[in-house]
């Protein structure tokens, strides 16, 4: 168990590609942090630098109180779970889980006991003598987890561990991994491109874009108070509606609608207004007109896709609302509206 701190970490590849811009943050002891972002945003590079599989171009990385920039991955007291599990195909599950301990010179009897414990924890006991090829995807995933757990490391690293599983199994493993981490109290860094995984598993989310941190916060903070249009559109499904509007005299105006929400006095000119699809209510007496083009049935919810003042807009309503295409009137919840700078995308 350990606190992990990154101080001014930067990664430039030999070909000049800047994978990670100068980055600093601290992960508390026992915290579950999720790095999320689109592909190529540098999240995997960041994780691999923490693991020691990638050199750090600049900055200081500390695990616990120890600077580990030049420490071999084997000596960083970490364990990593890979996307394709990276199980040793010729070894049984037992040997796969015990290999790390064996390399550290742990006595055979102790290895056997620890492997049994880990297998019991992960419901793998009956598969201990099988080879990875004889296991299902979910079981292989568990073996990879077992390999990490058995060493009782200070830090777990997960590199998109669930993306090779089918949707149902993914939901189940998500909960299992989270529960396991809670129980063991081990600090964890988890990389994913799936915002649902990020929202459901994280204590804190770090949203990355183009090698830069966009926002750090709890899932709720990230969802309700996105720091930029990027975060607003990346987190949440369906994403936040972003509408081009105009600010003047402390009011936001939109093509014929005045006073949608108050704007800071200092702001005037074009702005981007954000509103979550579920923060809109269908209301016969609503002040805003919404043209519904397509209805999407999700079971518990319905999505109404259409246009608001000629701009694409989506509304989410509960299953018991009666909906139809064509013109509808809506009300926007005032406290749920967010304003962003048009140029920088930053929140105002």
């Amino acid at each position, binding site marked *: 168990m350990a606190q992990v701190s990154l101080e001014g970490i930067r990664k430039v590849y030999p070909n000049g590609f800047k994978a990670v811009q100068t980055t600093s943050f601290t992960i508390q002891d026992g915290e579950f942090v999720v790095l999320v972002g689109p592909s190529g945003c540098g999240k995997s590079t960041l994780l691999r630098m923490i693991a020691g599989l990638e050199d750090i171009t600049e900055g200081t990385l500390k695990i616990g109180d120890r600077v580990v920039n030049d420490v071999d991955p084997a000596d960083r007291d*970490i364990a990593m779970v890979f996307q394709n599990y990276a199980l040793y195909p010729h070894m049984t599950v037992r040997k796969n889980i015990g290999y790390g301990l064996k390399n550290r010179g742990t006595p055979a009897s102790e290895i056997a006991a620890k492997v049994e414990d880990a297998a019991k924890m992960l419901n793998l006991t009956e598969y201990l003598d099988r080879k990875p090829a004889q296991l299902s995807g979910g079981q292989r995933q568990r073996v990879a987890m077992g390999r990490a757990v058995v060493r009782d490391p200070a830090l777990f690293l997960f590199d998109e561990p669930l993306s090779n599983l089918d949707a149902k199994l993914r939901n189940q493993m998500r909960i299992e991994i989270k529960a396991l981490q809670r129980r063991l109290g081990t600090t964890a860094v988890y990389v994913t491109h799936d915002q649902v995984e990020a929202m459901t598993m994280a204590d804190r989310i770090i949203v990355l874009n183009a090698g830069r941190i966009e926002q750090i916060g709890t899932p709720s903070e990230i969802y309700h108070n996105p720091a930029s249009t990027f975060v607003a559109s990346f987190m949440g499904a369906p994403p936040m509606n972003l509408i081009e509007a105009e600010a003047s005299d402390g009011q936001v105006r939109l093509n014929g609608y005045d006073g949608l929400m108050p704007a800071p006095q200092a702001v005037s000119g074009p702005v981007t207004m954000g509103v979550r699809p579920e923060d809109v209510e269908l209301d016969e007496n609503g002040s805003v007109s919404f043209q519904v083009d397509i209805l999407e049935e999700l079971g518990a919810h319905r999505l109404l896709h259409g246009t608001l003042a000629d701009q694409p807009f989506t509304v989410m309503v509960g299953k018991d609302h009666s909906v139809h295409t064509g013109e509808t009137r809506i009300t926007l919840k005032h406290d749920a509206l967010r304003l962003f700078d048009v140029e920088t995308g930053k929140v105002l």
Partner: protein
Amino acid sequence: MADTTLDTPAVTRKPRRIRWETIGDHFVLILGSLLMILPPLLALTTASHDAVTIHREGIQLGLGDDLGKNFNAAMFEKGGFTQTVDGTLMLMNSFILGIGFAVGKIIISMMAAYAIVYFRLRFATLAFWVIFTTLLLPLEVRILPSYEAIQKLGLTNTYTGLIVPLIASATGTFFFRQFFMSVPEELAEAARIDGAGPWKFFIDILVPLSRTMIAAIFIIMFVFGWNQYLWPTLITTDESFFTLVRGIKQIVLTYTDSQIPEHGQALALAIVAMIPPVAIVIFFQNWFVKGLTESDK
């Protein structure tokens, strides 16, 4: 009406056409098999006759009475100028050469491929292509300088001199390189985090994963080493280093001046020389196909 007239000939013609194809296929296959199997078979039948009969009547189709005698003489009777070499010694020499070749080539080429694929060497790609172009320089091209080097090192008439100069293998390096490149990178990373250094990763992970590949290369290289003729002829003059392939000729030669050549014995020895490579290919057949076509990663 039109339908029925079209249907009938199709029904009757179809099986006949297939039969002709099958017969054709089998004819070609049988012919090929005969072509391959007849010479060894004739060697076996001829080896069962005494030298006089063979010398007078040539190749024999039927089995004679001297099969056991000829094999016995070929394997256990001392021959050559020095009267110290028998078939068993030559068989052993052939095995030393074949296995030494195969094992040496596998070790060297695996390690070379490991270095090229897994280590950030400055000129790894260049090194690989330099190794690869040595395919253009087979032994026959460089035989004089090779002989010169071995002779100056005083390695003539030694197993080292026989095996080591031919041990570097571009083919093997190439096969192992391709195989290593198809092993997922995460496996090496997982092993690194699990505390396995480069050596341990090689021994614990890479070698077991390459089993089928090793078997395939072993077959190719064993047969290659077993059949070496030119290099052993150059490098060894001492008869105790003779291999089977050379011994066959020696039997025929040494007896010519005074008496009829022992053709029966020579043919018996030829058959003995054929058995181990065939046995190895049959034994490793499954692995061989697996190694060159698929791999369980």
